[in-house]
């Protein structure tokens, strides 16, 4: 088979990118911070998939992780606290041709942005969501976040956190229309990369919780899992993550898990003793909101203007004598 002449021309000029092409400013994260590993995994993905920087948008809220767009040489939107999802949804709705990523933290997503998070799952728009979960508000110097474990001492919980931690994976799996749910850890970069790549390739709202270290405020918290590979449960499947022989030798605690099995996914997500790593759930058949609502038609400036006028007119206070006239029009 051949390809259309336009594609031929495009391929003549196809650019091959290196990791450096995606690198924005110099990271200001702390040394040893897990965000670095996530950044590397994403940059590798961009390079390996041959993504054009001008066709990508990284949207974030507020927090350490939300500095992510600054470090990508792509389009980005460093939004306001908890509002990464609505911004990303707007971008995707207007420009479905762009690859839209959301970088959000445990505070940004699970606390102030929780309402947006829940509904973003339900909308199932084609977004790749990376939840950088370090269990603490790091940017504001160690306050407890919704995912902080019970008993964690912080500036806001000096006697230890009173509440059980929220499990973002269980929550996501409990929301209607969840279509891709995975969990990764920053200290297994190979698997982190595979999961991020699978999330990117999934059409729909792909939610990846990435458990990451905070060397500044919780330097010892994840030490037991780092020291003892058996405390990490690797979920493998032909339709999920497949381990390389090297990884399989180190991480012997493995379980075959079919990502189509949501009941088993929920059961695994709720396990306390080990950290499950892999794709817990994937359902490619759930429709995306932009496909359901998007007309697919181009929107000329005239149509956009007419739509805006109609919307704004609805809230305009007209002079008394012209109200009826405008209403009639």
């Amino acid at each position, binding site marked *: 088979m051949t390809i259309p002449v336009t594609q031929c021309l495009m391929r*003549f000029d196809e650019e091959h990118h290196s990791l450096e092409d995606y690198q924005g400013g110099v990271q200001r994260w702390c*040394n040893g911070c897990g965000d670095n590993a996530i950044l590397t995994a994403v940059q590798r993905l961009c390079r390996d998939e041959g993504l054009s920087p001008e066709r990508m948008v990284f949207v974030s809220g507020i927090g350490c992780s939300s500095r992510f767009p600054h470090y990508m040489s792509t389009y980005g939107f460093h939004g306001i606290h908890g509002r990464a999802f609505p911004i990303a949804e707007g971008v995707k709705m207007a420009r479905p041709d762009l690859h839209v990523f959301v970088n959000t933290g445990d505070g940004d997503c699970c606390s102030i942005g929780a309402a947006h998070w829940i509904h973003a799952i339900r909308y199932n728009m084609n977004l790749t969501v990376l939840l950088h979960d370090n269990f603490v508000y790091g940017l504001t110097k160690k306050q407890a976040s919704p995912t902080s474990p019970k008993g964690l001492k912080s500036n806001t919980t000096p006697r230890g956190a009173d509440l059980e931690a929220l499990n973002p994976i269980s929550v996501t799996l409990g929301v209607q229309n969840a279509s891709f749910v995975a969990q990764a850890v920053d200290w*297994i970069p190979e698997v982190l990369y595979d999961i991020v790549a699978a999330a990117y390739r999934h059409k729909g709202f792909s939610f990846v919780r990435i458990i990451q270290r905070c060397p500044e405020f919780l330097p010892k918290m994840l030490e037991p899992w*780092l020291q003892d590979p058996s405390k990490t449960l690797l979920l493998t499947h032909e339709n999920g993550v497949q381990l390389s022989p090297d990884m399989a030798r180190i991480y012997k605690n493995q379980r075959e898990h079919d990502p189509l099995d949501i009941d088993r996914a929920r059961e695994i997500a709720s396990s306390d003793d080990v950290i499950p790593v892999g794709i817990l759930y994937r359902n490619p058949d759930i429709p995306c909101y932009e496909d359901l609502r998007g007309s697919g038609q181009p929107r000329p400036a005239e149509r956009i203007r007419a739509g805006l006028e109609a919307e704004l007119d609805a809230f305009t206070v007209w002079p008394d004598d012209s109200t009826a006239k405008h209403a009639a029009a």
Partner: protein
Amino acid sequence: MTGGPPLTCESQTIGPEPAATLQGQAVFHLTGSRSGDELESIEGGTFRPALLAGYRDLSRLRYDYPVVLVESAADGAFVRSLSSIVDDVLQEVAPPGMEGERLRRQVLRLECELRSLVRDGAKGMLSDLWEKAAASLAVDGGESVEQILSHTGARLSVDGEVIDCDHEVPSRLVAHAWRTTQQQKARRFHDEVNRLLQALSDILRAAFIHSEGGRRPESLQAGVGDLHRDDFDFDVMSRLLGKSAPADELPVARRERIEWAIDVLKRQRFFEPPVGTSLVQAAELPYEYRFSSCAETMTAFGERLSELVEFVKAMSMAALEADGRYLEAKHDPFFDAFGEHALTLEDLALFPDYLVCIDAGDTDAAESAVVTEVLSSDLPVKVLVQTEDVLEESSLGAGHFGFGMRSMQLASTVMGLHDVFILQTTSSNLYQLRGQLLTGLEYAGPALFSIFSGSASPASDLPPYLTSAAAMESRAFVAFTYDPAAGPDLASRFSLEDNPQPEFDWPIEDLEYADEALQRVKEQVAFTIVDFIVCDRRYARHFARIPRSQWNENMIPVDEWLSLDPSDVGQRVPHVNVVDEHNVLYRLIVDAKLMQAARRCREIWHGLQELGGIHNSHAERLLAREKAAWEEEKQRELESLRAEAAATAVVEGAVGAPQVTVAGEGAPGPELAVEEAAEEAPSDDPWIETKRCSTCNECTLINDRMFAYDENKQAYFKDLDAGTFREIVEAAEVCQVAVIHPGKPRNPNEPGLEELIERAKPFQ
């Protein structure tokens, strides 16, 4: 069984002597001449194969016809059988239980009535015919019945024209499917063209806003709503903006290019622009794409080619401009030389497909050659060749048969072109193969649809549906698909699976009838091409009816006779089971001339089977060869083991039981063992598990000349001499994932080594 009396056996009467019977039958078989009274001619009779005895009145059967050509098919279901639509209605309206049962019965009666109407020539939309049938039933059932049936009619999920299986079915069904695919194509086409037009318009609009014209007071005023127009001084605003704005006018060449592309995209005539939703406004009527000859198609394509080339050129330019990737130095020379040479199959696939409907009976050798030529030209053309008569006599005349030759020749020639989609089938099976039909119409290249209509000819009493079904069942008109897009090899592309029992020479069916004692007899009989030919009065002379009294062991079914080696035939003569209009069972013997044609039909079928991977001679030979080699190998191994066991027994008997190690089978050879040991020997050099590095920057901050990142941004030792053992140990200590292994110091004179070696131990 529908219609007609039950199948019974002819009553027996006393006949002539057996020897004379055999002689007469053999003479007829070999010469086609009847000698004596016991061989009756069937000319003037109305016989049909016994297996078709049950299908007298098709209107009482629920089968694929009539079908509804669905209007505005959104989900690709461009055609539905009446039965499936009725089932959907019942599923929706009939409640479970007795009440639902009554409703079901009424609706099924209506379906039956509707079939009868269509059989008698009624035409129209399903909704209209439904009302008509309901009114007809209401004559007997009263007003309430009509109300019920009209109510159910209102629940029809689809509507469209109802057509029965007649000689128009192939062309109407294919044309309807073609229109459906063209509508989808038109949507895709308009989406893409509108997208490009929008992008080009945006470029021009943005250029205008940045231009001097865009900064004029009146332009600025037009950009502000009416309500606040008086709040601004647009003259001042224009001056201010003019001072700070860069001189960023759109280059003349680019503007001309974009405007040219917009003009070409807007005045296209390939598809009709959808009303109100398109940026395209056609100045003239769109082109016609349906033709009745390939020559006309070629002419039309040639006339439109320059316009098509221009359009593809405009699209390509627009796509590059929209993506911001048009480089004049690189692309101008290409577009200056752009012509039909640059078009690819996929470019052509963007435009409407040409549909050519041809009657096989009207195609002479010259037209056949043009068909092949068109199909080999990579044009987006879909050719329907409709065959009306599959049992035509050879053009040689003089009793030569050309059964199915014309269609077979065309199909096999076209299959040799490799990249043409082919679907061959009969009307009876067309509904079942609607998916393949769509696949062929959506295929990016040319496609051939060869369809036998089963059209009622004066030589047959069967309705078109039965004629076409019998043609496929008897292998007279074989169904197959050849889809070049399905894969690179014949196994992926060619399929015979739509034929009944494709693994057999002939389909085997159960035949039940009542014998003279009115006892049920059940036999398995094959449906051969001879059974199909018996329906055609033109070939009645090749059959002779044998009275029941003269049936004998030498009469064997046609399929059995064909499976015999010619040298073993002896006095045996082939026969087929037929029934008359009263469903009385008879046997007809067949002459050798017709059997020769049947044998050739079977050989052609065998050839197709091989293509379809059934009884493939190459595969079977290879399998036999491999099996023989495998058995030989195993035999050798067995003998070797036996010999070894015997030798061991002798040695054991003599000196005990020594351990024997065969080189290469047990422990590794000495060289290999040395290599493995060398690999496993711990190195004194420091090393990093690069694949596990999480890019935390700790080590590179300590010494970025010694530690560096690879192309995946993971750490490795770039230069071991660029730092000290102390730095390596410190890096190992701060590494979050403990992937740095310090090894042993390279410089024995480095200060504090003793302490550093101790600190390095946990990381080795």
